[in-house]
């Protein structure tokens, strides 16, 4: 599967991560799925990180998600994945990320090194085993 998003949105994710540093930022990727199964992110839905006890964790609670889903339905969009930042840590899923991952969703991780947003990488849960596989990320430059 492919995840498509614009350069601008990717920049917004980096800035969200930089703003939350040294804690983690999190949010949902709202968009559409085309006939080929590729996901296109239309907008971001920054979420409130409900984990305040540990800066290296994030949590989006179901109540927030239900509200967001209702909101997106009116716009003709759905949640196609989530993003979060890894402060001072590569953009690869941790064991905790994998353990909590849902199938199908895209998980976009952005590395924030000493307060500066760096590389981002997309991941999806493997169909068979508890393992995150890299997802191809198509970054669209804006005109």
């Amino acid at each position, binding site marked *: 599967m492919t995840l498509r998003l614009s350069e601008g949105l990717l920049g917004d994710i980096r800035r969200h991560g930089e703003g939350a540093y040294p804690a983690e930022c999190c949010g949902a990727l709202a968009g559409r799925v085309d006939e080929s199964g590729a996901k296109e992110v239309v907008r971001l839905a920054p979420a409130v990180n409900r984990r305040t006890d540990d800066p290296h964790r994030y949590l989006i609670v*179901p109540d927030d*998600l239900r509200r967001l889903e209702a909101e997106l339905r009116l716009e003709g969009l759905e949640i196609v994945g989530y993003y979060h930042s890894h402060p001072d840590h590569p953009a*690869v899923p*941790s064991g905790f990320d994998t353990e909590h991952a*849902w*199938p199908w969703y895209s998980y976009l991780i952005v590395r924030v090194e000493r307060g500066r947003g*760096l590389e981002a990488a997309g991941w999806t849960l493997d169909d068979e085993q508890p393992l995150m596989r890299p997802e191809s990320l198509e970054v669209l430059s804006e005109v």
Partner: protein
Amino acid sequence: MSVTVTIPTPLRSFTGGRDAVELAGETVGEVLDGLLATHGGLKRHLVQEDGRLRNFVNLYLNDTDIRQLDSTDTPVREGDVLTIVPSIAGGRPAVETELPKLSHAEVLRYSRHLLLPEVGVEGQRKLKAARVLTIGAGGLGSPLSLYLAAAGVGTIGIVDFDVVDLTNLQRQIVHGTSTLGRSKLESAKARLTDLNPNLNVEGHEARLSAENALDIIREYDIVVDGTDNFPTRYLVNDACVLLDKPNVYGSIFRFEGQASVFYAREGPCYRCLYSEPPPPGLVPSCAEGGVLGVLPGIIGSIQALETIKLIIGAGDSLIGRLVLFDALKLRFRELKLRKDPDCPICGDNSTIRELIDYEAFCGIGAAPAYQGPEVVVEQLKLELDDKGDDLVLIDVREPHEWEIAHIEGARLIPLGQLPDRIGELDGHAEIVTYCHKGSRSMKALEILRGAGFGKVRSLAGGVDAWASRIEPGMARY
């Protein structure tokens, strides 16, 4: 009662794409059981092995979380809607966890550690909590696993698929004469748990490969690389970078050794140092080139030391430094290593996102550079008995190898001298070249053929095959 269960998008592949399923039941639990019975693929994602809901799976009956009601015992009514809502959680790996306590016997056993403020009780508890994976239970794996076990590392994983061979015991001190022929895992486990019965040894009887490396390495905090070949070394490096684990590296050859700690989060990785493997065959293995038995003892001990320092967080680690050791000169040198911003796996624009085919990357399995005619040992024996002196037999090994054993009637011309000594040979004679196992002999063949020799063949399997099939009394090495 008929209840509608709404299925979130990520789980629809398990319900044939349907966004809702109608099910009957008296309680939430019964409806859920019905759902799992008809759509078994959902089980893994919704419930734990004991059948309870996974803690980031939430069920809403109409608009209320069932945890606020009677959980799965909540009764349902006709027309109710049960919604599966995920909690989305994750985050970078945590550092802090509760450390295990030390028993009185452990306090006594590790008393010399506890006296060091740099280790102390906390450091010792960190060692007990640590999970270290050693790749290989051979020359390097022996001393390092022994010292890690003695130091109180709680869990040592070992990856090896070999059996203990007599040629190992000159340096592989975790094994012994009593375990000859047994698997290295069993042999090492017996010795390590004798040294420290508190130790938990996890054996992985497999060749580390791109298929299993991530699953094995993921379970450990630190990886110690004691491998003797390039494909595995690149594989270990890449898997460690992808999983964000420190890789304590060591390698040995003849009288020289190297050690470093590769940890992409804080410094360079092995690819920053060596972006490309050497051409296959250029660097001989220890089996081909030999190694001084005590050398892995020194390098493996440095690896154990660095592993322990990483665990307890003391001192300056070898991250970003490469130590070179020369045993004959008894000299240590140190090179500063820099992270390569263009490194294909840990650089800013990395291109390697998953494990690759390392045998192919290192050029192994590709067609050999030169393939000439060969003769098997049985055929050579017949021809020697038949033709005797008319057949010229040339040993292209080194003089010290010749001294160990050689075939009666052969002439010694080491491969390196062959181009200069070609004039000594009769271009019309029938020639057979041999070496230890056959690869140098093939190079000799290439040289002779290039010089216009028409009737040359190479002995398949070399003097080793001769010793095993023709002259069983001959020494092997």
